């Protein structure tokens, strides 16, 4: 029936009670008056858009997809999914060259890796930043993550035999950041897991989880990545009986939740086997495994909960692990968005909003004055390091540093 096409929503917008609680927790609304806010952009707007796509509002692009509206909603409405789905469904503006480049994290990584020293040198130059600012509208304040000369995949492949010798095995979805920019995090994970008697394997061939493609209006490409990655997960989980871990909260959220909810790619048979590494390690320790910590370790750690981890509700595992380390003074920072939201903060038009959103978090970090900020998200790391000067470490790297 024709009518159904227009009156059916896959999201539960009708459960919105119009209580406006989500608007109190939207970080964008605090900084950008052009954004209509989660209630208006999500459930209210959905009702209108179903009647006539004319009501789609381009200002929905200001949504960070931080999902704090969903965390706050007392009625369980998938507000962020409503907004992102509407962008996928109604916004057919072709993405700009800049957005394509920012979104293609694994392609750019492949391209840059062989020339890492040159690329790092060039992207770090003031003149390059100015050129990118003017021509591409990539804000000049941003520092591009450095590329590593050796990929993590290459490093781990050389240790295949050694890893295969461990009695228990796990597959690692390392993501673009670990592979091309910061293999050390992957190496740290291998160290911690090996200490627990667990060997680390790669997936047969992983692709970028696709979050940057989704938020930059390239959902068709994102869907291809999703289909590919779910097939890879099935191979590991169903054929080999492995758990799959990641060290990036956003990769985990994307593959567990965005694939089925936004891209329509079913992952029900593997979803529960895809875990954040901190959860996997916590569960091992809970079942009796032990880690041997160094004597005399001392660190004051302020933990920042990334938005996507707040949404997943798994920050408790990272928190409990860090608290377990003898000699750690642990401070839980108030859960606030840092403002970068992946590629969002790199765009010139978003720079000021991005910094304004993050300011309460930066101010709290400065007042706590920790030795290090801990956080499970790579883009939060860039933002906090750039904006506060404090070093940010993944909890896995802290664990690796603290064990013998």
């Amino acid at each position, binding site marked *: 029936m024709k009518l159904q096409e227009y009156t059916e929503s896959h999201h539960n917008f009708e459960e919105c009670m119009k*209580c406006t609680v989500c*608007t109190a927790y939207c970080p964008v609304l605090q900084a950008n*008056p052009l*954004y209509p806010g989660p*209630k208006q952009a999500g459930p*209210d707007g959905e009702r209108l858009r179903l009647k006539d796509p004319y009501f789609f509002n381009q200002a929905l692009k200001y949504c960070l997809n931080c999902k704090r509206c969903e965390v706050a909603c007392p*009625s369980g409405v998938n507000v962020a999914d409503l907004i992102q789905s509407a962008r996928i469904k109604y916004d057919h503006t072709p993405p700009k060259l800049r957005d394509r480049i920012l979104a293609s994290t694994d392609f750019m990584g492949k391209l840059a890796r062989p020339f890492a020293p040159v690329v790092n040198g060039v992207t770090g130059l003031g003149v390059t930043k100015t050129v990118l600012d003017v021509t591409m509208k990539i804000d000049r304040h941003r520092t591009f993550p450095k590329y590593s000369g050796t990929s993590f995949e290459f490093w781990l492949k050389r240790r295949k035999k050694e890893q295969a010798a461990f009695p228990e095995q796990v597959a690692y979805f390392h993501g673009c950041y670990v592979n091309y920019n910061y293999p050390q995090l992957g190496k740290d994970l291998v160290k911690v897991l090996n200490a627990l008697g667990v060997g680390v394997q790669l997936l047969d061939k992983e692709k970028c989880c696709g979050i940057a493609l989704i938020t930059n209006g390239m959902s068709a490409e994102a869907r291809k990545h999703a289909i590919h990655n779910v097939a890879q997960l099935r191979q590991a989980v169903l054929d080999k009986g492995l758990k799959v871990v990641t060290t990036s909260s956003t990769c985990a959220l994307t593959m567990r939740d965005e694939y089925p909810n936004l891209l329509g790619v079913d992952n029900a048979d593997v979803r529960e086997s895809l875990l954040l590494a901190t959860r996997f390690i916590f569960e091992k320790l809970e079942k009796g495994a032990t880690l041997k910590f160094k004597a005399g370790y001392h660190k004051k750690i302020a933990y920042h909960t990334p938005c996507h981890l707040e949404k997943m509700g*798994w920050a*408790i595992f990272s928190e409990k692990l860090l608290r377990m380390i003898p000699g750690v003074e642990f401070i839980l920072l108030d859960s606030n968005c840092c403002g970068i939201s992946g590629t969002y903060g790199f765009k010139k038009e978003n720079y000021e909003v991005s910094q304004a959103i993050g300011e309460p978090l930066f101010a709290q970090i400065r007042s706590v004055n920790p030795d290090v900020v801990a956080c499970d998200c790579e883009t939060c790391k860039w933002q906090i390091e750039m904006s506060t000067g404090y070093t940010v470490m993944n909890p896995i790297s802290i664990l690796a540093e603290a064990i013998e």
Partner: protein
Amino acid sequence: MKFDSVIIGGGLSGMVAGITLQKAGQNTAIISTGQNALHFFSGSFESLKEPGQRILDLFAEAGVRLHYSPGLWLTPLGTFKESALSLEDIDLFPERKFARKVLIVNFLGYHDFFSSFLAEGLEKQGMSCRVRFLNLPELEKLEQSPSEMRSVQIARTMDRLWEKVVQEVRVLLKDEDAVVLPQVFGLQDTSVPGRIRQGIPARVIFAGTLPPSVPGIRTQILLKQRYQLLGGTYMMGDEVVRAHVHDGVVHSVATKNLDSHYLEAANFILSTGGYFSKGLISNPFQVYEPVFGLDVEYKEDRNQWYNPAFKEDQPYMHFGVKADENLRALQDGKPLQNLYVAGSVLGDTRPEFGTAAGQAIRTALHAADQILKK
């Protein structure tokens, strides 16, 4: 994950129980399905007839100052309700006529504060009223999106702009002995309402707006911070989907976010709230409690659930989960050994603990005490 106690529901009741247990040395977790009824809080605890130093202390330690002065509070519609305990910035009056002349001040373009209703209500009590609007250029930014000119957005700017409001009000003030302002002050900086009162040479009354409630959110933030500072684990945005109960004892609960990772505890508190928070659910046939399927006190005949006269006392508001004298939840007529019930999921079934926010606090303290006595 193992805890001493797991509290299901993170509103006023859950946080009061959590703070009490943490302070007594327990390791607890609170699971909260989104934000809670404090976001609709009037700022006044309606039922408490006696001060209870313990309650004042618990809130003061969290940075929430309360005052005990039995009387009447001014509703957002210009009527009065009885109360005894309030947040510091919410006034309680010994009698309805609290001033001779009242200046009611609102912000231009802000529709969630009912200044004309207030004026009408106060004039009925013999106070002459004047309504004026402030046009602050700093708020024009908010007006670009009129649907978002809300209490909290204004409150965020008021932590910086309150002095300007004081100046403008002083200019407007003639011979009035009271000024009514919307409750949009002191969201982050709790000293702001007090400083406004010092700056205006008349009695300043902060009256309620449409939700979200700024004093309520402030209370939520401070109580949650206190709970976390005491080492409590607050899990926001998660939901208990299943409970594992054997032989009258709750062993663990499963949540939406943690799927197969169960939360185990020696004791559990159910403080999931009323109908709005889905602590109680009604359908055409029954009123039920969704997490444990506990016994619920309600009328069989659906026609007796409500009173067609909208403003009258509504029977469905009295329905709630059944509990024994120690607030242990009843399932099939028998108490579960380690599950306690607190807050509005009890409905008005336990008048001895008061109603509304007062009941939320008292049942929470009682439940926590039962656990600590064990």
